[in-house]
Structure formats: C-alpha cells, structure tokens
C-alpha cells in the first residue's frame, strides 16, 4: 500500500538538529556558531589566566602563583587570546555573516570550512594541554623568542609549537575560503563598492593571513627543529641568528594586529549607521583606508625590534612606515564621527560598545605614535606601557567591537533578542573596569615596570597603580558574568524577533532569524551598499 508513496524527505546529516548534526555540519552558519562559542570558551580561559596574573601582581612580593606558573600564565594568556580567541572568533563572525551579507548560499568550500573549524579546536586543545605537559607548560611568552624557547626543557614548548601549527593551518584554509567566497559568490548587482564594509575588512583580514601565516609557520617549524632535531637556525653559539626569528615572527606578528582589529572596525562600520539612522559617512574612504592599513601594516614589523640594535637609519624607516599607519586609521575615526553628525543616536548596547571603541581605541592609537617614535620606544619598549597600549587596541578596540557585533547579530543568529538591561550592566562594568585595569599600566611602564615579571619590589605609587589595575580586572570579571548570563538566558528564552529588528541596511537582515540552511529563497538585485534600506524605501513608496 505504501509501496508507491514518495519517500519521506530526508534532511542531509548536516541539517539535522542534535549533536550529530552539529558535528557533521558543513553549513557556514553552524560552523560560524561553533567558532564563536568555542572561541568565547577560550576567551574565558584566557581571562582566568589574566585574573591570576593580576592577583599575583596586586602587591609587591606576593606568592599567589609560583614563578614558573606565572610565566606559563602570561605565555598562554597571550597565545590563547590571539590564536584561540580573536582570530577564530572573527573567523566565526565572518563565516556566519559573509555569505549572508553578499547574498550567497554558503562559503565557497563548505568542507574545507568545516576542516578549518576542527583544526582550530584541535589546535586549541593541544595548546591548553601544554599546561599538563611533562616538564612544565610553555613559558617563553607568546612570541617565544629563541634562544630561550629552545633552551626550555620539557614538552610544553613543543605542544605550543604544534598548537600554533594547527591554528595557523586552520586560519590559512579559512583565509583562502573567505577570499574565494568574496571574489566569486557575490549576488547579482553587488559590485566591490556595494559590498558591506564588514566584508571589505574580512577581505583584508584574509589577505593578511594568507601573506603572513606561512612565515610564522616556517619560524616555529625551524624552532621545533632547533629544539628537537639538533639544528641551529636561531642558536648563535652554533652559527645561527637569534634576531632572524624576531624578523620572521614580527613579519607575521604585526600584520596579525591588523588581522585582529580590522574586522572589529568593520563591525563598527556596520553598527554605527544603523543606530545613528544615517548612511555611513565616506563609504569609499573607509573601504580604501582598510586596504591602506593592511598594506602599510605589512611594512612596519621591525618597530617591535627598535632595541635589538638594528642600524639607526633602519629604525627611522620603520618609524616612518609606522607613522604612516596612523593616516588611514584617523581617516576611519573621522568618518565615523561624521556618521554620528546630525544622526538620531539611540544608545542600545551595540551602539554603546561602538562609541566606547571610538573613545578607547583613540587612546590606543595615540599611544602607538609614542611607540613608533623610536627614541620614546627605547624607554617604553617591553614595559607595561606596551601592555597598556596593546590592550587599548585589542580590548578597547577589538573586544569592544566584538561585543558590539555579538549583541547586534545575536537576534539574527538565534532568532531571539538579548536582555538589554543585563547588557547595559555588561557595558558599563567593562568600560569602567577596563580603564581601571589598563590606564594605570601606561604610568607603570613609564615608571619602569618591565613586562613579564612575576613580582616587583617597589612601593608607593608603583604598588598603588598595580592595586588599582587588579581591582579593575574584578570589575571586568563582573561585567563579563553579566555577558555570559545574558547570552545563555537570552539564547534559551529571549523574546522572538523578526528578520530585521534593527531596521538595518545589509542583506543578512533580509533572511529570516535565524536563516534557513539555504539562507535565501531569493535575493533582491543590489543597487547600492544598503540593499535592505533600498528595499524598505521601495515598499514604502508603493504603499
């Protein structure tokens, strides 16, 4: 009787709900969410490491953690925040958003995309396993300069190298995927100058990764050979060069900063116009300044090496290129300010984080000019001034942008609205705690506190600044708890939202919230960089 009935439709494995569906998924949205959730997991792990470090430094001569554990903490804090949080969480947002924003059904290579995620997870677990390694965890800092990183015994450093290999492979595959997707899969009418600005920044992110990751992979491979195969690429005693590694590492390490900040800038460029109810000011200027920052960012690596004794003229060249980065960066800031001008600014949390980024990244950008003027760097290099500068860029910049993006796209990804009240608490606690933690570190650095010391002996203002900084980390922790609770609670039971709760400009809001596996039934022809607003206007005119 049922012989002739058509077979019941069977969803492909990757569309199933439940664990199997997630494990087997090749859907860019699910992979994106896996990336984002996993990366935030590593963010909290790295945050706990930072909390322990600040407890140890709260007062002079404390013994909260042991000396070697302290060194492992800052090594793995830096490594996990960079390789396991910022870069992959951006890959997650890019995964989720780029196909939707350009009106595509998926990434160009869905299976490669899944592989990228699993390599990232594997790399993260390998890096963390360093904590339990025979002979102690990696403890040579996130840049692992030889000869120290060759000298350190035990397997922790080798696991660190393997972890870097896995995460760089993951990012490299991801970068190729993003580039191919952006170049080939834009929907009808979406020319380069009609692409959302976030997609522009992901293009820059991917190109920078593609050009620089192979160099760091080579560097840590040579490091592994020096450690385990008896070679001496970086060992001066046997004719190698310790400085060579620094060139290779920073050739990757500085563009990496732009890899981490540009997509956050892209998020600002998406969120700011929506909550100011105005078009972005200077679309082309912002798009091209992204490329300008990426290009100039490839030419500045030796500003991390002003004190290694390079010829002075070379320091001057790298100071000039570093100054040059400030030009496209200030173009972005002024265009964002101009976007606010005559807007109707509503202070929903995504907007607050964007405004916070504008205020705080400015401080991080300006302190970068001090460091680029190499005579000042002779004083400030490797001091807490650099720690402060870097966190104003990577937390006040990147993390604030990420929080803005997380709240902004939360309704799209989950189909539910976050809790505004909890989110406001999150913002204000983070804003205050962040400044308490890191602003005083400028002063500590100028007073002469070097990085990576597990304790200090100086008292007075020196000790008080350290205390303020430690208290700040607890204020931040409280803020992050509000974030965590909000995410869990709202994902489970937040109020349902429609496809476009913000009245936004870009195509991802044309899909349902959350979007179906194939994203769109149809995509409107794109005639500007604000296709959704164009559509809204057309509908209104027809009424």
């Amino acid at each position, binding site marked *: 009787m049922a012989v002739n009935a058509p077979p019941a439709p069977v969803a492909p494995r990757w569309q199933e709900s439940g664990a199997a569906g997630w494990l087997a998924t090749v859907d860019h949205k699910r992979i994106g969410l896996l990336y984002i959730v996993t990366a935030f997991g590593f963010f909290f792990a790295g945050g706990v490491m930072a909390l322990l470090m600040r407890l140890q430094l709260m007062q002079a001569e404390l013994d909260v953690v042991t*000396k*070697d554990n302290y*060194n492992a903490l800052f090594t793995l804090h830096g490594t996990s925040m960079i390789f396991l949080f910022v870069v992959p969480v951006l890959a997650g947002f890019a995964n989720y958003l780029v196909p939707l924003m350009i009106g595509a059904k998926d990434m160009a290579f869905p299976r490669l995309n899944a592989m990228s995620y699993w390599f990232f997870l594997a790399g993260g677990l390998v890096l963390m396993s360093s904590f339990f390694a025979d*002979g*102690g965890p990696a403890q040579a800092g996130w840049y692992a*300069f*030889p*000869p*120290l990183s060759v*000298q350190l*015994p*035990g397997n922790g450093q080798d696991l660190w190298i393997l972890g870097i290999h896995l995460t760089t492979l993951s990012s490299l595959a991801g970068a190729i995927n993003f580039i191919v997707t952006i170049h080939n899969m834009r929907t009808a009418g979406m020319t380069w100058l009609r692409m959302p600005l976030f997609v522009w920044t992901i293009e820059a992110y991917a190109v920078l990764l593609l050009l620089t990751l192979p160099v760091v992979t080579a560097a840590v491979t040579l490091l592994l050979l020096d450690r385990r195969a008896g070679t001496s690429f970086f060992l*001066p005693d046997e004719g190698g060069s*310790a*400085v060579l590694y620094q060139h290779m590492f920073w050739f990757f390490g500085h563009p990496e900063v732009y890899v981490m900040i540009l997509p956050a800038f892209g998020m600002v460029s998406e969120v700011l116009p929506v909550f100011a*109810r*105005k*078009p972005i000011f*200077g679309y082309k*200027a912002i798009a091209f300044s992204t490329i300008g920052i990426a290009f100039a960012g490839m030419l500045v690596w030796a500003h991390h090496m002003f*004190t*290694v004794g390079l010829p002075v003229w070379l320091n001057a060249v790298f*100071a*000039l290129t570093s*100054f040059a980065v400030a*030009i496209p960066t*200030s*173009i972005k*800031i002024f*265009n964002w*300010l*101009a976007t606010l001008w005559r*807007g*109707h*600014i509503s*202070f929903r949390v995504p907007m607050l984080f964007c*405004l916070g980024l504008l*205020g705080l990244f*400015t401080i991080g950008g300006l*302190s970068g*000019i001090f460091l680029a003027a190499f005579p*000042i*760097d*002779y*004083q400030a*290099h*490797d001091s807490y001034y650099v720690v402060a500068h870097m966190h104003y860029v990577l937390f006040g910049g990147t993390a604030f942008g990420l929080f803005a993006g997380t709240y902004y796209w939360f309704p799209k990804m989950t189909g539910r609205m976050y809790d505004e009240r909890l989110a406001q608490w999150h913002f*204000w606690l983070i*804003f205050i705690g962040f*400044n308490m933690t890191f602003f005083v570190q*400028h002063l500590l650095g100028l*007073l*002469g506190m*070097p990085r*990576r*010391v597990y*304790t*200090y*002996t100086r008292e007075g*203002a020196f000790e008080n600044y350290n205390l303020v900084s430690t208290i700040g980390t607890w204020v931040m922790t409280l803020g992050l708890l509000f974030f965590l609770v909000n995410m869990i609670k709202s994902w489970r039971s937040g109020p349902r939202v429609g496809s476009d709760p913000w009245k936004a400009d870009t195509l991802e809001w044309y899909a349902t919230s959350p979007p179906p596996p194939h994203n769109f039934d149809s995509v409107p022809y794109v005639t500007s960089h604000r296709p959704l607003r164009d559509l809204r206007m057309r509908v209104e005119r027809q009424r």
Partner: protein
Amino acid sequence: MNGSRVVLALLVLFAATLLVLPLTFGLPGGTGPPEAVTESGDAINQVYWVVFGMAAVVFLIIEVTLIAFIFRFRRRPETPPNVEGPQIHGNTRAEIVWTVIPAVLLLILAIYTFSRVPEVEAKPGGGDMGNVVTIEVTGHQFYWQYRYPNDALSYDELVLPIDRKIRLVLNSEDVNHSWWVPELTGKRDAIPGQTNTLYFTPNTTGVFENGVCGEFCGIQHARMTMRVEVVSQEDFDAWLEENAPEAEDIALGESQWEAACAKCHGLDGGGDIGPAIAGNSILTNPEALDLLVRVRGQNLPGNPSYMPPVGKGWTDEQLATLIAYVKSNEQLAGPGGADGG
C-alpha cells in the same frame, strides 16, 4: 534601561571617564619617563613631551567631538521611530582635510624626532677622544656582569664616573636580555652572537636602583635587577683601583654568588626554585663546577627545574673566585669543604 535621565547620567559618566583619564598623567610619576640624568635621556623626554603635546590636541579634538555629538545628536524620546538623519554619504573636501592634516602633523613629528636622534644615540664625536669609558656588559640568566677597563669585575652593580662618555658594549652568553635603567637612558638589548653599543653621559651623581632586564629571559627574569651608582671621577678611579683584579677576591666572589647562584638557590644555599646546594661537594670541585656552570648546566630528565649554564663565558679566575668565596663560607662549603675544614 528606561528614562532618558539615566541615559544622560551614564553619558556624563562616559564623558568624564574619557576626559579625566589624561589628568591622571599628572599624578606623581605619571608625567612621562622619569627625569633623566643624561643628555640622551633628556632628549628622549623632550621627544616624549612633543609627541605628548600633539597627541593631547588630537585626543581632545576626537574625544570632545565624540562626546559633543553623542549629547547633541542623541535620539530624543519624542522622536518618531522611523525618522532618519539626513542622507549624507560623504564629502570629498572633508576627506582631503582629515587625510592631509594628520599626514602633515605626522611628517613634522617624524622630522622633529629624527632631528633629535643624534642626541639620543649620543655617539662620541671628535671632542670625546680620550673621554670614553668602555664597559663590557654581559647578560646572563639572571644577572648582569660588568667588566671595566682595568678588567675589574662587578655583578648587578655598575659604578660609573660622572661627566664621562660611557660606552656600554652589550652581549649575552645565553638568551636575549635588555639593559634598562629608566633614569639614565633608553634600553638596549643584549643578544647572544651580536654586540650592541649604548652611549650616554651621566651628569649627576647618585644611586639609581630601578635597573631591570627588559626582555623576558626565563624563570627569574623578575630578579634580574641592578643598580647603577654614578660617582665623581676621583671616587671612580679609587673604586677601580680597589677592585683591580686580584686572585680569589672573596668579596667579589660573594657578589658573584649573590648574582649567579643565590637567585635560584637562596642566599644561604638552602634552596628556592633550585634545590638546596649548601654543602654540595660540586661547589668546591673545580672540574665538576666547571662542567655545571660553564659548559652544560643541569637538565635532568623528568625534572622541571632546569638549570642554565649560569657561568658560560667565565674565565678560570672567575670560577676560582667563586670557589674561594664558597670555601670561605662554612655553611656553603659544608664539612670538609671549607679551608682548613
């Protein structure tokens, strides 16, 4: 969050945080690098203040504009939800202005910075002939070794004459270090396999106790501290004479012990991160000690407390001096080790 009053209050907090922050630069010790006692240090501080002045202006322009726009263009409760701002997409003239002005400012800043570089680098000119005092600085895990023109040695403590051009020749025997005394001048790395030079001329006598190692160098990086004493020429000459090399100088051996051994094994050799070594026969056995501290260090399988070769590059005399000190100290030498035991 309801009520525009709460929003306003919070925006005031936002504004206050961003604008009050720079004031904290006026707190004690917060006004730039510490006052320098060298011309090169002064030059660095002046570059700092010029950059600071420019950065402060830019900072104020951006933050004040941001805060003013936030207040001025905030959505009022009575604004209907669908109202949009004017559809302004950009302005080429504005783009040119805020591209060219920062570029010009940065160019001026670069020219000014480069013009001060000769003073910062402080390379000796013709007038300095015969006025240069060269001191070899060797970075070790985890101490600084200084060798003076008459081959006198000191550890973690540097004595310098006032008003002479000091030429530090920096090297390392193991990993990367960085020599930094904030009051004197900027830091310079001590890197194995390469020789770096740092010049400066101290113009004030005094003791500067905040010397550190700037580049992470291993487990006791935090303890690689040092002090610099600037004294008059007569005192410097007297110091050199007093510390001229002599065989088995016990006082020197003691400072060598404090620098190279005590930071990991405790002042009394009772152990800290390294094991207790007081009374260990290796300490008084020249062949065994040579192998341990000059050649290969100690790296026992399964034992995380790795010991670097802390005395790499030591001369035979330095090794003998350390042994002489150990032998002079009953507790360290142990039974049978001390002289006349």
